[in-house]
């Protein structure tokens, strides 16, 4: 039987995150600092408000965040 698609996920794709968010340009500017704060176990969302909400609503920026985190995190793990 096919699993029913997740309404929450579909609405998230359609409507993005609620609340204030930065744009793509600001996201790119802050992304390196955000990733390092995350990897250092610090509160990146408090340090850079609005970036998490943007990542939730922008698949392209989200992919680039995931890649940078994976690349830098992988190097730190070596």
């Amino acid at each position, binding site marked *: 039987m096919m699993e029913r*698609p997740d309404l*929450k996920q579909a*609405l*998230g794709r359609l*409507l993005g995150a609620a609340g204030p968010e*930065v*744009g*793509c*340009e600001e996201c790119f500017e802050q992304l390196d600092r955000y990733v390092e704060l995350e990897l250092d176990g610090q509160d990146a969302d408090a340090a850079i408000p*609005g970036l998490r909400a943007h990542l939730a609503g922008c698949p392209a920026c989200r992919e680039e965040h995931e890649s940078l985190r994976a690349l830098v995190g992988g190097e730190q793990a070596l």
Partner: protein
Amino acid sequence: MSALNAATVALVEPVSPLATLAPAPPLLDAESREWLQSLRAPDATGEDAIARLHALLLRAARFEVARRRATLPHLRGDELEDIATEAADDALMSVLRRLDDFRGASRFTTWAYKFALLEAAVKLRKRAWQGREVPLEPEGWSLFSSAGLEPDAEAEQSELLETLQSAIAQVLTPHQRRVLVALALNGVPIDVLAERLNTNRGALYKTLHDARRKLRNHIQERGLALENEEKR
């Protein structure tokens, strides 16, 4: 030219006046300081540093290509390597052009990596959609089928989805509707749509954000709850 247009609006919606202020520049770590000094050196030291930087950017671009390889099964290994090299070349130009912008908010290498990842990601998204039609028109589309949903027995959920569908048709401008349908329902990558519409990522995301805000207001005015919201 950078994949992100510098002329785009930085903030879609200001978080707060204070949050938009740049933090005080931290002291550079020793490795980052060495990168900057070497890259600015006028002699062979500078040339060597640029070569090292290119190698670093190429590693990041190859990393991105490897992550996305499954989405491009028709591309040969040498074509993927060409994309990685081109991304590293473009990223090198961006990094050198923006060297004075680096303030040490992160390590230099982390800052530089993001340019290579961006360039590679944009090139790969465009390549994946090369020759494909970009669905822009809302005619014949259904929120339920596009989002993979069917109106089910729950009346409140059906009402929400139907209200959303009619709001998309009636509340948004034609441009907002095209952008929302393409990006949020049809899964067109924002860089691909930006290229087809001759605009840039920041401007398109602003349009998407405005459309989303209109839809949210419309839903709230009708007293409907959105299930995707976190409880606060």
